[in-house]
């Protein structure tokens, strides 16, 4: 099974918001909240900036930060592409919200039993062979779903054909190690608020380079500290005269009991 992805071409978006409504319906979210940014009621939003419409949603990274940082493994990256969240595992530390480079996960601040909210890539529909609600409903075909490899070909073909229309950047091809959601735009992505300095390495490598040193720290640290205390204590005992010349321990002031 080829990994799936979505291609969102901002130049084709007319800002009708059908994707937002379809998303809310699909995920049983109250429909009246058309907000200005992602929230626990909006897994996606359509926004206007620099004269164009653009979408925000979970990028479904290839090596997702949320999957790596979650202490209880509540996030999983599925083979097909969607990054899924298991509310039963979650303990609510919100480290995923801090760590996500795209600022995607949202929280239910007013609930006594809150969960993380984010785009699910309509995993149930997709698992049943269907399409994501937003791409399915889009009247302009601005959002389309398919095999990621195939979508990349389309994206590059569009940039080649209309270099005057697009910035030469398929957002998500390499950003943060690559994402399942790909974007095309006529306006530089940083002007729309998308981070463009994330590099092409998956971010989890940053923390892994620290974490992978732990076994060494424990081993060398343990030996160093143990050795240090061994050497120092023996010297102190020598000074106190509780060791004899061969270095064996002498029982001070005790008469017998050996036999």
């Amino acid at each position, binding site marked *: 099974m080829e990994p799936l992805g979505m291609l969102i071409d901002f130049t084709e978006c007319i800002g009708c918001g059908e994707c937002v409504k379809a998303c809310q319906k699909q995920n049983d979210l109250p429909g009246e909240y058309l907000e200005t*940014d*992602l*929230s626990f009621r909006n897994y996606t939003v359509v926004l206007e900036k620099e004269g164009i419409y653009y979408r925000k949603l979970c990028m479904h990274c290839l090596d997702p*930060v949320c999957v*790596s*940082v*979650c*202490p*209880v*493994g*509540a996030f999983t990256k599925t083979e097909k592409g969607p990054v899924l969240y298991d509310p039963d*595992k*979650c*303990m*609510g*530390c*919100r*480290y995923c*919200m*801090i*760590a996500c*480079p795209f*600022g995607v996960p*949202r*929280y*239910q*601040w*007013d*609930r*006594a*039993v*809150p*969960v993380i909210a984010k785009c699910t890539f309509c995993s149930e529909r997709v698992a049943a062979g269907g399409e994501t609600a937003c791409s399915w409903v889009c009247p302009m075909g601005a959002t389309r779903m398919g095999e990621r490899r195939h979508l990349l070909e389309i994206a590059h073909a569009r940039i080649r054909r209309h270099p005057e229309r697009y910035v030469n950047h398929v957002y998500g091809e390499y950003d943060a190690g690559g994402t399942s959601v790909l974007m095309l735009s006529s306006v530089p992505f940083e002007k729309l608020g998308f*981070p463009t*300095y*994330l590099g092409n390495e998956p*971010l*989890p490598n*940053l*923390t*892994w*380079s*620290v*974490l992978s040193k*732990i076994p060494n*720290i*424990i081993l060398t*640290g*343990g030996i160093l*500290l*143990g050795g*240090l*205390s061994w050497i*120092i*204590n023996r010297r*102190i005992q020598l000074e106190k005269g509780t060791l004899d010349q061969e270095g064996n321990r002498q029982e001070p002031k005790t008469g017998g009991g050996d036999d």
Partner: protein
Amino acid sequence: MINSSGGLIPGRSRLWIAVFAAIILLGLILTVKRYMAGLGSVTALNDYQPWGLWIGFDVLCGVALAAGAFVLTGIVYLLNFERYKSVIRPTVLTAFLGYILVCVGLLYDLGKPWNIWHPMIMWNPRSVMFEVAWCVMLYSAVLALEFSPVVLEKLGSQKMLRLMRSITIPLVIAGILLSTLHQSSLGSLFVIVPDKLHPLWYTSLLPLHFFLSAVSVGFAMVILESCLSSRLFNRSLETHIIADLGQFMAVALMLTLIVRIQDLSFKVGLANIFDGSIESWAFLIETACFIIPLVLVFLYRKRMKKSVIVISSAFTMFAVVINRLNVSIIGLARQGGFSYFPTWEEFAITIYLVATGFLVFILCVRYLPIFPESEESEKCPGGTFLK
């Protein structure tokens, strides 16, 4: 409550009891509100600033300020500086209470606190938070064991005491390793946000910086605790002990600053220091608090005064507190447009937790052999901690 051996001044004690009672009553009411209506009902946290005062102060500062125990047990039991033995017990007790408070603070901050045990069975070794969870669990257990002789002594259980004494060194080494790991990994938590954390604080050396500053503040806390308890419980305090600890602190501070400044000068971050933004001011205040104690200790190195050492330690404590808040709150506040400022409820619950810890400390001192009873027991070898 009016008790001459307790040391609290009788006239003032009634006022203090009233203050504590009010703090605790308010804390309990807010606790109910927080669990009934969710985090949003008592905190100013939002989607752009998901961590606030409870993580920044209660957890990050709580852990850092509890660093005294691993620093001091290392000096006393591994390097054999026996003269600091008299401050070991209060330091271990403070650290133990500190870690309990960190865990309780987490119970307030976690969205689903009843799942706090999940890292025990749901493993994710790639997560720094997973490592922190395990280290805090294990180190709390180590601190409980390190403190247990005090309780066993009170109970008069000689057999258990002998057993505990036999494992002192391995226990101390385990404590140092666990502390090293998770003091630093609280910094590693932010290594994953190169784009979000302000360049004045973001560096891949965050773990090293967190560790070194924790060691500095570890010494500072031992000094401050010794001075505070000597006042509260009318105990005499030997100036030479805190003077020595002040020197240790100065060395640790130097290391902290060298690593920090060298690292910053390699980055564009240096250009941001004087740009007048909120971050630049926060950074300048933090750095000043790191430098002042160093300058003070060096100016007075020939004639160490108690007051100078105490002031230096206080500045070191402020420096680390400000640093942790800067990294976890102010350095991350840009994307939310600085929309977060803690509510009075967040402050009230934090004060409630600290006050409760303080009360438990006082009770422990009153009912357990924390401080050597008299000069004789102080001179008796091994007269403290693991007797």
